[in-house]
């Protein structure tokens, strides 16, 4: 390469280096750098492609230097190499960079290798690589592996954090859907209570008048019995019996509706229930026993083993006894129903219904109550709807569809939460979480 050509080359090269080290206008790069320049640092993230990215990097450097004091540097060119046709040059420079940042003095040793091509009648920077020296006994090979290991370690950390983030995102989504769910339930509860009040009065009339008419029928029948008996009196008597039957039906269904209304009103009344420190285990023993004997005394009794596993160290829990006892009764009744349905439908003669109830306390002073049965289980599709008012799987007159809705309401008013886990034909478990105070 002749002197003239080399002067051109070094002119371009020095401008390039200075543009990086000094606060030069960014447009300066337009004449120095190939538009598809590539640059690499030592770590995998440090990749620069194209003129715009070079400018970006440079303005970042300028921004950084604003905070530096005593900034100076020294460039020492350690190697120049040209291709045989003098159309390609590699220049390697070592740079000592010194600055003070927040009273800390730093000396940085950099090595920058630059590749230039002579194209379009001038020299252009097409590639560069920047690195910092690593002092090791093993030399460069080892350094490369160290670098790789470092990258792997970083990647592991990133993976770990990604997993954690994904987990917390899932948690957030679950919480969000629970929030929406309980919001829905709250507004439905209010609506239900409003309707209940409006329906209560007409319901009372239906029940009172049908009851009254039944009494009248009895009186009329007594009067008719005093008459001379003939075919007409016999007809009248039979008709009165029919009317009485009908009135009994009116009264029966009126009472049924009244019970639904009363349950609906529980939604609005639960709010006044005062919370008092209560021995939860004793309450559970008492009401599980009550639920069990209630079921045994009913027409549809089944044989159930009760398995209580109560942690006696949980201490007293803030409860409203009246309301919380309803929760225990409701959940036990549901469990008995689920196990009865299974024992009726199963072909397995050895099926043995078991109701398991467990209490425990975690480190955060949250008391867990689990009520589990080995009955029919809850299909995945209806798990979401389980706590909605009027949702019922019990056909006809068996259920009001309010039991679990009220249960959910009562637990909320205890500042607790309730969840269900289940596997079809295996088990259903209600998990209740209560703050101790």
């Amino acid at each position: 390469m002749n002197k003239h050509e080399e002067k051109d080359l070094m002119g371009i090269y020095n401008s390039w280096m200075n543009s990086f080290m000094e606060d030069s206008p960014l447009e300066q790069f337009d004449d120095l750098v190939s538009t598809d320049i590539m640059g690499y640092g030592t770590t995998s993230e440090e990749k620069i492609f194209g003129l715009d990215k070079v400018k970006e990097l440079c303005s970042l450097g300028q921004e950084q230097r604003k905070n530096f004091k005593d900034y100076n540097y020294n460039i020492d060119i350690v190697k120049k190499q040209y291709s045989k046709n003098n159309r390609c040059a590699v220049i390697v420079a070592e740079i000592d960079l010194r600055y003070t940042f927040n009273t800390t003095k730093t000396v940085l040793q950099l090595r920058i290798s630059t590749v230039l091509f002579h194209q379009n009648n001038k020299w252009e920077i097409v590639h560069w690589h920047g690195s910092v020296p690593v002092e090791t006994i093993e030399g460069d090979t080892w350094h490369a592996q160290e670098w790789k290991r470092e990258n792997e370690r970083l990647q592991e950390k990133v993976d770990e954090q990604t997993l954690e983030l994904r987990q917390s995102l899932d948690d957030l989504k679950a919480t969000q859907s629970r929030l929406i769910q309980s919001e829905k339930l709250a507004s439905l509860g209010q609506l239900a209570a409003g309707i209940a009040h409006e329906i209560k009065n007409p319901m009372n009339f239906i029940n009172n008048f049908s009851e009254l008419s039944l009494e009248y029928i009895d009186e009329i029948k007594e009067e008719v019995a005093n008459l001379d008996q003939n075919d007409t009196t016999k007809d009248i008597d039979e008709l009165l019996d029919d009317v009485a039957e009908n009135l009994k039906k009116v009264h029966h269904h009126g009472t049924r509706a009244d019970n639904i209304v009363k349950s609906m009103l529980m939604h609005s009344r639960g709010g006044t229930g005062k919370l008092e420190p209560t021995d939860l285990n004793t309450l559970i023993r008492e009401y599980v026993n009550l639920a069990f004997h209630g079921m045994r005394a009913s027409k549809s009794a089944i044989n159930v083993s009760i398995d209580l596993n109560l942690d006696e160290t949980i201490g007293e829990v803030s409860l409203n006894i009246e309301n919380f006892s309803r929760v225990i009764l409701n959940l036990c009744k549901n469990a008995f129903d689920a196990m009865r349905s299974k024992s009726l439908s199963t072909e397995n003669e050895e099926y043995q219904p078991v109701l398991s109830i467990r209490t425990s306390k975690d480190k955060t002073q949250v008391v867990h109550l689990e009520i589990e049965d080995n009955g029919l289980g809850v299909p995945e599709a209806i798990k979401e709807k389980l706590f909605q008012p009027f949702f019922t799987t019990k056909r006809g007159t068996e259920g009001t569809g309010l039991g679990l809705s009220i249960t959910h309401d009562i637990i909320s008013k205890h500042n607790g939460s309730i969840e269900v886990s289940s596997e079809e034909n295996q088990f259903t478990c209600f998990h209740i979480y209560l703050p101790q105070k």
Partner: protein
Amino acid sequence: MKILVVDDEKDVEILFRQKFRKEIKSGSLELVFAFSGQEALEVLEKSNPPEVMYIFSDINMPGMTGLELLDKVKARFPQIKISMISAYGDAENYNKAINSGAKEFFTKPIDFNSLKAEINSLIE
């Protein structure tokens, strides 16, 4: 024995008249009805002293509530006994009524057996 029943539901009259048919027929009980608190006061003012000895009043009524009527009756006709009948059996209503001098507090649906017992104790 004259009893005034106050309720904005008109069918209450038919219900009471039928429930106490025998007592009315025998003349031991006379029922009068008012469908608002205002109307109840008018009934009481008709004769001096009022013939009514006992009042059963609903609490939730448009216009004057049963509890307001209770206060007015207690102030102007302290000799008349008054009991409340309400669908809202909550502690707040109950305490208000009893503290204002209500004799009894019945919740709806009315248990006519206990109501009959109360009235019969008055007749005797």
